[in-house]
């Protein structure tokens, strides 16, 4: 089988897995809903309790998981490509923490504003964090090495995270709303919130897919990209704008679900190879699949407790990050 055919098959397999786990996620929860009820709620809504649960709880939850999972994973893939840095992701480089702080500040200043306002705060926070981490990480000798960027991101995340916690401690009113959100959860999003934020995420995803060829060329490193005639400043800026749209939008939607942006692109690279023309679509499908599947699994195993999916991602992602950092540093210094 040719590489092209096998790569298409991988994307098809991911799409099928995503559809199956999406359907499953609609059926599991505090009350199990059979698939027929879900289908009936779509085509013939009768206002019953089951149909109401499907329409106001399960569907929004699925949509939030789909969009945020794709957005975090694609943002991570783009960051790894553009910085030539295997450790890059919106979580590790502090983008998520910046967006989260901006939202918490906005929530504590203007209570009960619209989701359409918060998402712009998230973009501003994400962009500010990206600029700070890049400036700090590239200062000094050797420029922006992978490990220096990751360290700058970790420091910024810790600092910004304490600010976020401090605001939450003094502002008990928003604490309850934000506590679950700050670890990353797809629970309890209203359809209105999702509809206000989803367009930004979808624009980001469409941009990433359209520009995947440019991102692939950027991933060759500045030297080769420049010799091939790529305008580095323009395309790096476009890539950064897409990352801010994706990560900021996803944080506004579900809170910072960490590690999806780190390990999904790596898994995609293992399966489809080093070409970002394939890694980006594979990450979009894979990120949505991982988040939706893990969220459904948590509800199936622990139906009485709503465990935020961000916790499951951290349990999978943290050991992976350690493995990655160790294996990379063993081969060459970062």
């Amino acid at each position, binding site marked *: 089988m040719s590489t092209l055919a096998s790569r298409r098959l991988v994307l098809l397999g991911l799409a099928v897995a995503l559809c199956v786990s999406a359907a499953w996620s609609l059926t599991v929860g505090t009350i199990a809903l059979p698939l027929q009820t879900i289908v009936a709620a779509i085509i013939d809504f009768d206002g019953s309790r089951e149909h109401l649960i499907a329409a106001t709880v399960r569907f929004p939850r699925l949509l939030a998981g789909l969009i945020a999972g794709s957005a975090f994973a694609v943002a991570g893939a783009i960051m790894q490509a553009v910085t030539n840095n295997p450790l890059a992701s919106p979580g590790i480089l502090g983008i998520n923490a910046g967006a989260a702080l901006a939202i918490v500040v906005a929530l504590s200043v203007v209570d009960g504003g619209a989701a359409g306002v918060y998402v712009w705060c998230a973009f501003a926070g994400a962009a500010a964090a990206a600029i700070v981490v890049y400036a700090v990480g590239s200062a000094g000798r050797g420029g922006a090495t992978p490990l220096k960027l990751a360290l700058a991101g970790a420091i910024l995340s810790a600092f910004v995270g304490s600010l976020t916690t401090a605001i939450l401690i003094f502002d008990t009113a928003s604490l309850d709303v934000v506590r679950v959100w700050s670890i990353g959860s797809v629970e309890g999003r209203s359809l209105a919130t999702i509809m206000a934020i989803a367009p930004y995420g979808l624009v980001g995803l469409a941009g990433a897919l359209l520009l995947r060829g440019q991102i692939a060329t950027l991933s060759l*490193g500045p030297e*080769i990209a420049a010799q*091939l*005639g790529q305008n580095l400043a323009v395309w790096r800026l476009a890539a950064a704008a897409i990352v801010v749209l994706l990560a900021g939008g996803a944080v506004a939607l579900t809170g910072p679900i960490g590690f999806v942006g780190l390990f999904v692109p790596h898994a995609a*690279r293992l399966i489809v*190879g080093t070409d970002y023309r394939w890694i980006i679509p594979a990450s979009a499908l894979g990120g949505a699949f991982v988040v939706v599947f893990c969220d459904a699994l948590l509800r199936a195993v622990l139906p009485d407790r709503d465990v935020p999916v961000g916790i499951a991602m951290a349990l999978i992602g943290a050991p992976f990050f350690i493995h990655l950092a160790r294996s990379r540093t063993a081969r060459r210094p970062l």
Partner: protein
Amino acid sequence: MPSDPALSARGASIGYRDRAVIDGLDLNVPRGAFTALIGPNGSGKSTLLRALARLQSLSSGQILLDGRALATIGPREAARRVGILFQGASAPEGMTVSELVQEGRYPHRSLFGRWNRADEAACARALRLTKLEALADRPLDTLSGGQRQRAFVAMVLAQETGILLLDEPTTYLDLPHQLDILELAGALVREEGTTVVAAIHDINQAARYAAHLIVLKDGAVVTAGPPDAIVTPALIEEVFAVKAMVVPSPVDGRPLILPLTRAEREDS
């Protein structure tokens, strides 16, 4: 010297901070010929090649590509007309030869770049010229140094540029692979009319393969011309601070440099 050089520099200066690497340099690169750039380390060869490929901006003066100021030509158009091979180029881990070669088509593709038949043909030709067809699906990190160097040459060939700049293409290679690269460059000049400029350490190889030499020292051109007209013991001593004998090669009559040992220097 042909009247219409492919590339030329007019009073070009390049400085990093306060130090001038290239200072008021003038040169002409003859069209459709093999030009070798020779000079000691630190004479500015790499910097000059980067500037000729529009990858290094000048602090003053200008570079002309087909008589037009290179700075006014966009990066993509420049990359369609001038290709450059860096020494020690590296690509992402796990990338295959054919994936790298396909990236060479970047300057020819539109914004969202559909792959077309011209792209396919250019890549096939690049793989054929570099004899890499059998290795096309191999990851670069599984190849030998010489094969990997040929893969980067293939990427630059896929750009289908009329001008090819090679920055020490033979460094780190063993003799047969050095000759492979030089023969390939020579064949491109003879058969396709490509203009080649190569920075070459080995003066004998430079004199053997190039029709035109440009000799660089401290960021300025010392002299330029056909090897047999310019290579003399005085030039070698002036540029490299090495006493040498220059004899015509028994093979082709081109100048052959024989550096003298200390004992021979003291004798003469």
